[in-house]
């Protein structure tokens, strides 16, 4: 007796997918551990955000790099103002007030951050402008005013460092040009960008991206096998690979929504708290979007992988942990050496490419900001510059930003599909007691 009305393998897949997906979602929702994992993740990100808010609301000391806010002869005129008008900074009776017409003394603060950066690109050429005149108006020879010998007096020469194989720039100033930048404005901008990159890459994409699947996906199939409830699911006209996939879909429904909410909250807070002229920093949304894309993909690949490891061995977590350690090593490598080819053999390397390329599009001036900050007017790097330099990476695929995103997403999708295939084959060959 062979029933001639056997359904096709391909029939009703949408209904089965929805049934298992929905079931899995509801099952996760009923578990305390799910909420613990999600809330701990949320709380950890919240604590980091607190540090950020503190950094944004703190006062940054305005440093007078060139010392021209001082008034050495105590005549009420800051040294900078005296130099501008050619009076003697050591003689209390010689000051711009005795000139005709008489000049009123400036407040000291005018001469603190008075010569900000005047560059608009990080490329070879002549940049900068001496806003306060302490180079242009200086009583010096033309060759002294052109210390970098590029034929332009009182400028900054940017050129490729010949020892870096054309990768980094060196900055040679004529002296007293753009030497007194606005420390606070720079620090706020640099720290804001550092925070978005750090919490996006390390916090959301890596930590949340790996721990949520580790705790929630590893047992997705295995727990049901152990408890025996898997029998209800596989004694049905459904392939095991399908059961595997649909269960993952249920997990993804939860994880993806969670990531979306988490990232939306972070984007909201950082957008309002961060520095800027407008009320909200819309310019950051491109970075947040790439963080969202990367984290969704990371959770997708890790979920498939960890669920497969759970099927492979009942202590799948033990297999997942060394892998997580490998990924931690890789994520640190992306910070220091994003072009290293070993990163191709990781998941996080590709996910980081997505964020880095997205940030390269949304914040294309960041390399310039980093260079400015590290140079810092010639008096050492500004606050926030080192951090931004650490968390900013240029993806090393050599495909351009958009090409990098497309390529990385493709590779991540391929990894997810390969893990699903692995899990399906393992599950199919598993005897279930």
């Amino acid at each position, binding site marked *: 007796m062979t029933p001639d009305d056997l359904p096709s393998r391909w029939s009703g897949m949408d209904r089965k997918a929805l049934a298992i997906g*929905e079931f899995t979602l*509801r099952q996760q929702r009923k578990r305390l551990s799910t909420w613990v994992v999600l809330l701990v993740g949320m709380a950890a990100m919240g604590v980091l955000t607190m540090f950020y808010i503190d950094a944004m609301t703190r006062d940054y000391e305005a440093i007078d790099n060139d010392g021209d806010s001082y008034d050495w002869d105590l005549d009420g005129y800051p040294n900078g103002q005296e130099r501008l008008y050619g009076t003697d900074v050591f003689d209390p009776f010689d000051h711009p007030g005795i000139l005709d017409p008489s000049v009123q003394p400036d407040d000291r603060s005018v001469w603190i951050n008075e010569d900000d950066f005047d560059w608009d690109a990080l490329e070879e050429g002549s940049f900068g402008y001496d806003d306060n005149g302490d180079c242009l108006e200086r009583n010096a020879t033309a060759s002294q005013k052109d210390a970098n010998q590029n034929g332009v007096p009182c400028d900054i020469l940017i050129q490729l460092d010949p020892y870096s194989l054309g990768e980094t720039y060196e900055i040679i100033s004529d002296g007293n040009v753009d030497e007194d930048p606005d420390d606070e404005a720079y620090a706020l901008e640099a720290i804001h960008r550092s925070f978005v990159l750090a919490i996006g890459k390390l916090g959301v994409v890596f930590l949340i991206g790996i721990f949520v699947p580790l705790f929630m996906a590893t047992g997705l199939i295995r727990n049901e096998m152990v408890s*025996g409830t898997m029998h*209800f699911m596989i004694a049905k006209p459904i392939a095991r690979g399908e059961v595997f996939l649909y269960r993952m879909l249920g997990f993804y429904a939860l994880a993806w929504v969670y990531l979306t909410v988490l990232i939306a909250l972070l984007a909201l807070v950082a957008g309002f708290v961060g520095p800027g002229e407008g009320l909200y920093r819309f310019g950051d949304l491109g970075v947040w979007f790439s963080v969202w894309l990367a984290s969704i993909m990371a959770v997708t690949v890790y979920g498939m992988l960890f669920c497969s490891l759970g099927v492979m061995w009942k202590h799948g977590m033990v297999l997942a942990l060394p892998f997580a350690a490998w990924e931690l090593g890789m994520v640190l490598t992306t910070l220091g050496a994003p072009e290293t080819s070993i990163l191709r053999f990781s998941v996080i390397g590709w996910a980081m490419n997505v964020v880095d390329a997205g940030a390269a599009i949304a914040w294309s001036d960041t390399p310039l900001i980093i260079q400015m900050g590290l140079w810092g007017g010639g008096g050492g790097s500004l606050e926030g510059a080192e951090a931004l330099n650490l968390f900013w990476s240029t993806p090393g695929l050599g495909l351009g930003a958009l090409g990098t995103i497309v390529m990385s997403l493709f590779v991540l999708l391929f990894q997810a599909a390969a893990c699903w295939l692995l899990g399906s084959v393992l599950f199919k060959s598993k005897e279930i007691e």
Partner: protein
Amino acid sequence: MMPDITQQGLPPTQAAAVTAPVVYFNGVSKSYGRIHALSDITIGLSGGVTGILGMNGAGKSTLFKLLMGKLRPSAGEVKIFGMDPWKNPMPYAHVGFVPEHEKMHDWMTALDFVSTFARLHGMTRSEADTEAKRVLNFVGLGDVMNKEIGRFSKGMRQRTKIAHALVNDPKLIVLDEPLQGCDPLARTTIMNVIRELGKLGRTVLVSSHILSEIERITEQIIILHQGKLVALGNLHAIRERLDEIPHTIRIVGEDARALARDILTHPAVFGVSFPNDTELLIQTYHFGKMHSELPRLIVENNHKVSIIDNPDDDLESLLHYLAGGSSS
């Protein structure tokens, strides 16, 4: 050994048709390392209720798991509607399986549980809902179907599992120890459900380690012992063969010796003994006959009897006999 099942309740035309049996095991063995869970089982079944009897660890669950594609046979072939269940899950569209595992999804209501898993048969949400309500009513859980399974008694849980297995109107229903741990009421309900399914012409496989349970459900049995098929066929026929070995019947009453005097007159009895004043042990070869005549003997002679039982008329002694018989 080809199965010899002349099973009642099956229309002759269907029995004569040359088609693959619903369930077919051909020389199937399953071993875990050096432990042989099943060895060389050959069975073909179509239609009616078949009881699978065996002690714990006899291989009943292994047999079912092979049938449900959860285990892969070490040797031989398993077919369900003529297809290999390890390779192809599609025959399960016409199968309902009640696993022995206690664990269920306690957080779901019975209706949720049955309808969710019904959707794995490709039903829409509303179809699944309708069917789930139908089968839950069929197993007598209609009034509690919106309660969480976690609050159910053992018997209600078993019935929920059975409902879940019936939701696709299966042609083959496999029940692994469905009566275990159930209260008498649930037991009766479940037995009725199983008999009902048999009458509907479905192929039903039900396992148990309690002979009297299976006796109340069906006459067609398969007995497994230590992974081997030791008997297959009509339970009464197997029982008759028991008459060939000496059997003990234990009677507890007011005056054991007076009772013995009356019973010894019966030709089937070849010995009696008295462990104490109120207890009588009868030795007989004709076990079935003795059992049917004992009540008459007792009533006619006005004896007061409180217990009649058969210390070795259980599965264990049956198996002992069958296994011993096959080895000699």
